[in-house]
């Protein structure tokens, strides 16, 4: 199969959906001639024109409100927020309006919009351009939260998100944009709420999100040389969550390490740990549920500090090894 980048998969999903469905359009800052802060919509203005690639002023609240309104009256907008950090500004429309309207109108109104935004650190962009705030939105009933880790998942999940009749927060990862992987040229959907076992193993389950999936896979590869057989589960959708796949994996291995980039306190790992502890998997746990997550600090500008602020491959290897060797 042909290989394209994570970023190209984003663009291809949007382009093909816009070609297929006239109600799909894009709205965001610098998405037109500039092609988006990371180039996701590069060339799309030329193909679809300024009516469907809507450049806005610097107003996250305004553009999210516009997308919410358009979705209410039958369009399928894709709003791009340049950095996830700025979703704080979009939150009023997203959390208090987009997420609620369907319920407030007794299901007679729907908000089929996607809010795409890149999260994560590693680019030296410091405190205001490096956060992973996905769990804020996981906490809001009425929103779906998607966090793909591979180009293949990006395309299938973004297509499904565009076609979904609910507001979907689609969280991309900056460092993953340049990673390549096989992606079919034709349109396909990956259902929201379906986890993916990225690697099968029997000694330990790692549940990882976004960039922590490739890092966990690399860690698993290194650990396999020590005879440690790691299973890596990628939930792909944080809400709705595929609890069954995770629980079954933990039942199989008896040990679970949760890895995410967002800070540990109040992060999605706590939710996962709770789901596992409440489930049938509890009686199969042979070690405490362990979370490996971002440190409880804003992402520092200093590159060395930034590197150590979030889990790296060597951290995952060390923690997983300790768990399997019963040191935890």
């Amino acid at each position, binding site marked *: 199969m042909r290989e394209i980048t994570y970023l190209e998969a984003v663009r291809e999903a949007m382009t093909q959906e816009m070609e297929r469905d006239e109600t799909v359009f894009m709205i965001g800052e610098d998405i037109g001639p500039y092609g988006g802060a990371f180039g996701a919509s590069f060339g799309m203005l030329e193909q679809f024109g300024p009516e469907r690639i809507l450049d806005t002023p610097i107003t996250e609240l305004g553009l999210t409100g516009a997308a919410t309104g358009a979705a209410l009256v039958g369009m399928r907008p894709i709003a791009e927020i340049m950095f996830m950090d700025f979703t704080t500004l979009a939150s009023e429309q997203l959390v208090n309006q987009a997420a609620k309207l369907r319920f407030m109108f007794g299901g007679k109104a729907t908000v089929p919009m996607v809010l795409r935004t890149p999260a994560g650190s590693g680019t030296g962009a410091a405190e205001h351009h490096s956060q992973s705030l996905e769990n804020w939105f996981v906490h809001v009933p009425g929103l779906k939260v998607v966090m793909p880790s591979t180009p293949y998942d990006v395309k299938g999940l973004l297509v499904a998100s565009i076609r979904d009749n609910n507001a979907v927060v689609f969280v991309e990862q900056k460092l993953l944009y340049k990673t390549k992987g096989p992606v079919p040229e034709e349109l396909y959907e990956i259902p929201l709420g379906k986890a993916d076992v990225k690697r099968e193993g029997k000694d330990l389950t790692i549940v990882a999100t976004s960039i922590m999936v490739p890092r966990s896979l690399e860690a698993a590869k290194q650990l396999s040389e020590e005879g440690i057989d790691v299973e890596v589960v990628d939930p792909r959708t944080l809400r709705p969550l595929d609890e069954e796949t995770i629980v079954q994996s933990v039942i199989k291995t*008896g040990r679970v390490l949760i890895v995410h980039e967002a800070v540990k306190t109040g992060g999605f790992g706590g939710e996962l740990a709770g789901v596992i502890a409440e489930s049938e998997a*509890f*009686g*199969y*746990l*042979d*070690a405490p549920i362990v979370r490996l997550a971002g440190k409880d600090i804003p992402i520092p500008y200093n590159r060395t500090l930034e590197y150590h602020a979030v889990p790296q491959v060597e951290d995952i290897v060390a923690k997983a090894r300790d768990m399997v060797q*019963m*040191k*935890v």
Partner: protein
Amino acid sequence: MAIDVIMPKVDMDQETGTVARWLKQNGEEVRQGETILEIETDKVAIEVESPASGILNGILVEEGETVPIATTIAYILEPGEALPDAAPAAEERKTDQKVPVRQTDWEVSVTPVARNMAQATGLDINTVSGSGRDGKVTKKDVEAALASPQPFGNGEGKVYATPAARRIAAEKGLVLKSITGSGPDGRVQSVDVLAYAAAAQEVARTTIVPVPEFVSAPSSGYEVFPLQGMRRTIAERLTASYQSIPHINFSASIDMTRFNEARAKLNARADQNGSTRISATALLAKIVARILTRHPWLNSSFKDAQGEQGAAIHLFNAVNLGIAVALEEGLIVPVVRDAANKSVAQIAAEFKDLATRAREGNLAPSEVREGTFTISNLGPFGVEEFTAIINPPQAAILAVGATKPKVVPDADGQVVVRPIMRITLAADHRVVDGAVAAHFIADLKATLEEPVLLL
């Protein structure tokens, strides 16, 4: 500060350990967790790790020597540190290497402070070896025992285990407390439970000997008594018991002087109050029940199961004492429930009622069920000593003979006449090891001979 290297307890019922081989010698540098010696118990040989990093010194126990568990056998010192004053030279120690090995917890004496410390920390004082005069357990011994690695967490007697280990133990009917954990801080892991279950399974494999056919009958003829009802039940149960349970028997002679005195006093009081007189069986039952609470393996049941799954030993929380009653057509074993927590007067009254109704055939089925241990007293018939067959699914039965005046030597070696009773315990050897049964017998003997110990 000098860190003690002690003789570890690695088996459930281990009293002593033998130093098989020192892998490190005096003056050698050792790291924490490094293997420094090999010991042997009567079951296994095992490597012992250094409890600390430093210099090994003051080896007190030579290869081949046997010492009680928790005895200090060497020290780990910091560089330049001298041996502690208390450490006798190996030569000196050799002269009294016969450290008394405690036989029962009745013989152990404990200083008040040691007992208080043990209670406060939840330490079983019976697992601590005494280093004081005549093996008295002192504060120092309790401290040493507390400093030694505890096999199960410290959650005040709770077992430190993973959820998976708990689930598997529950599924297999295993007592988590009996399983040594290999996880961090001795946490019981699923692998420990599986290993324990596999070992138990191995022990449980018994050979069943085929019963020879009854080939011929005497020519003088015979009366036919159809095998039915109680007779059939007795036949089937005892055959199954004797065929499937490997019985072991232990006998002891008991000086009943004090027992008889105690019973006379109780009956003087009963006569005064007009309450039920205390039969010897009732007082014996009371004492046996109480002693059983300290020896749970005797108050247990071996649960065989189909295939590999589920076989287990169930240690019962309550002592439901079955007391055999002879009837014209056979025998029946009514059960005094939770006998350990009943007064002797209660037991006497209850047993009298049960026995009377048993002879009248008026026992409810529930009154003969769920026994956990049986006493069969043939003393009233003049039988001096006999062995009994275990009443399944119980793990032990106590056969009690008649108390007869016997000529015996007293403590000073003088010949005296004392009322002597013979008892014989039959136990399921799959559950009860010889030493476990011996401890029970010794404990029981001590208490029957001095019933005040029950207090």
